[in-house]
């Protein structure tokens, strides 16, 4: 396997398969993900007010980055795929950002407890 010929064969195999992540690295990422899940649950016991949400989102972002970088091999992949991935994340931000911005702005206009069509809906369900 260490002969020049062996190396060529290995290189060809690696080219065909793409990058192979060492098993220990994958195990390490899995362990980190499990640990972060435990941290997410633990963080719910802390009362940080509005920052609880941001802490949970931060941990989730870290976990998804680990998945993208190591399980999806983006760390070793071509830059084009990283651009596509970041582009997709930007689209999620665009969607959630505009939808939530709108939701925040029309919320004060809603009449508390007023649900149009509720009696008819209740009848239809019955």
């Amino acid at each position, binding site marked *: 396997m260490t002969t020049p010929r062996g190396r060529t064969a290995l290189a060809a195999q690696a080219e065909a398969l793409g990058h192979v992540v060492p098993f220990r690295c994958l195990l390490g990422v899995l362990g980190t993900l499990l640990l972060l899940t435990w941290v997410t649950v633990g963080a719910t016991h802390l009362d940080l007010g509005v920052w609880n949400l941001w802490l949970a989102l931060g941990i989730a972002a870290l976990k998804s980055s680990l998945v993208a970088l190591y399980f999806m091999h983006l760390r070793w992949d071509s830059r084009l795929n990283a651009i596509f991935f970041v*582009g997709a994340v930007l689209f999620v931000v665009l969607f959630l950002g*505009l*939808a939530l*911005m709108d*939701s925040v*702005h*029309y919320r004060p206009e809603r009449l508390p407890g007023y649900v149009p069509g*509720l009696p008819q*809906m209740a009848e239809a369900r019955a």
Partner: protein
Amino acid sequence: MSGPAGVVRPAEVARPQRHYLNETPGLRAWLFTLDHKRIGVLYLVSLVVSFALGGVFAILLRTELWTPGPTIMSADAYNQAFTLHGAIMIFLFIIPGIPAALGNFALPLMIGARDVAFPRLNLASWWLYVLGASLAVGAIVLGGVDTGWTFYTPYSISTGTQVVLITLGAFILGFSSIFTGLNFLVTVHKLRAPGMGFFDLPLFVWALYATGLIQILATPVLGITLLLLIAERTLGIGIFDPALGGDPVLFQHFFWFYSHPAVYIMILPAMGVESELISTFSRKHIFGYKFVAFSSVAIALFGFLVWGHHMFVAGQSALASTIFSALTFSVGIPSAIKVFNWLATMYRGSIRLRTPMLYGLSFLFLFTIGGLTGLFLGALAADVHLHDTYFVVAHFHYTMMGGVVMAFLGGLHYWWPKMFGRMYDERMGRGAWLLLFLGFNLTFFTQFILGSLGMPRRYYNYLEVFRPYHRASTVGAYLMAAAFVWIAFYLLQALWRGREAPANPWGAGSFEWQTSSPPPVDNFRDLPEVRDPYDLTAWVYDDAAGGYVRREART
């Protein structure tokens, strides 16, 4: 085999004994084929069946509106008929339409590839389409759906019709669409002929590439939305249901984040077809190649920024409406770039009014009307008056039917000789086009007037004053139905009685015209040399070949 400079000689592209249509006979060989051309044909047959089904509902709707009040069906049946017409036409015909049928057939040929990057995924895409369509038809058989194709909450949560089944069908159809888009993106990146750069690609390929981007980025959101709707109906989780503290406007955000880009999934491939038709039948190089190419990508990206214009009167905040209205006007820019470039291409061209070109010109005329009336609807104040009236119905049909369906028919007539190796009757083609064009405008221009007079859409009953307009619209719909039957007749007749098609009947310059009609299983005996696909001066008509050949090959 090829000439010294990669010139394809007529003898090399003569109709072969064995080609993709007859290489492996039998139903099983067709249903499990991995050949992109056969999958394109399978899609074409499936799409035509769906289109016919959606068309039947359209005719029923228009017949019902012949008189105010009951004509041939009850009000509940009418609600179901317009829902099913919309859902079938959108999810089963227009969205997959051009990419799945014409794109699957033409894209690998146009870039000099033997097949798409993932042939099995391509077949899976068709099977998912069949499964999704079956669920939609199952919903019809089991009682129909009456929510409108948009499935708006809270009504879609409470109605007793088959919402879960049809949304499950649309969910599965979404995967079919994603598979096609993914396949096309990878194919364009990885399987272009040696030496073929992005700016050597035909513009139809650019359009399919931009469409693929939208299919991948937007369709998952539709999947999530429909799953949430199903969860809301079955589990009462309270995301969209106001009775449980949910927010129906949020459903509209979710729905339109997909469904507005989806209209670009529909129109972008149509614009790609248009570029091919206008250049080929004007016998001129496309004007502003890079502008047309990049405007496809610009439309794909801008299309993601305007979904809120569907919600101006739905309870959306004034801030969001103002932003979305302003952004909506921006989409007009890349669309106008295309229209002006097509016009400039035609300017001083040697225009041939063959059947595909007639559809191409119809697209240009009708889509421009559809696009410009969209600007009316994008203006906040005008939209308050026109929202949910027949004006919107007319605008939508001018872009989708006047645009996409006309381009689909143009593309079908353009690639038909390549797909099946037979020419159709040109006189019948022109006659059916004229009938369709007249019928279309009678149906939908009338609806612009109806809408601006205040006739709401989706109404079973109407005031007496609207009767003449509704009748004219219905007569137009009957004319269109007759035209479609006529088109089906002469295209099918061509399969048995049409004269054999030459390799290049129109004198186009892209790769697919440099192989036989129909192509062999592996697409090319020898790969042609990569050249400018719009340099049409290199092609001259050759009597012996019965079509166009390269100048060098003739001498």
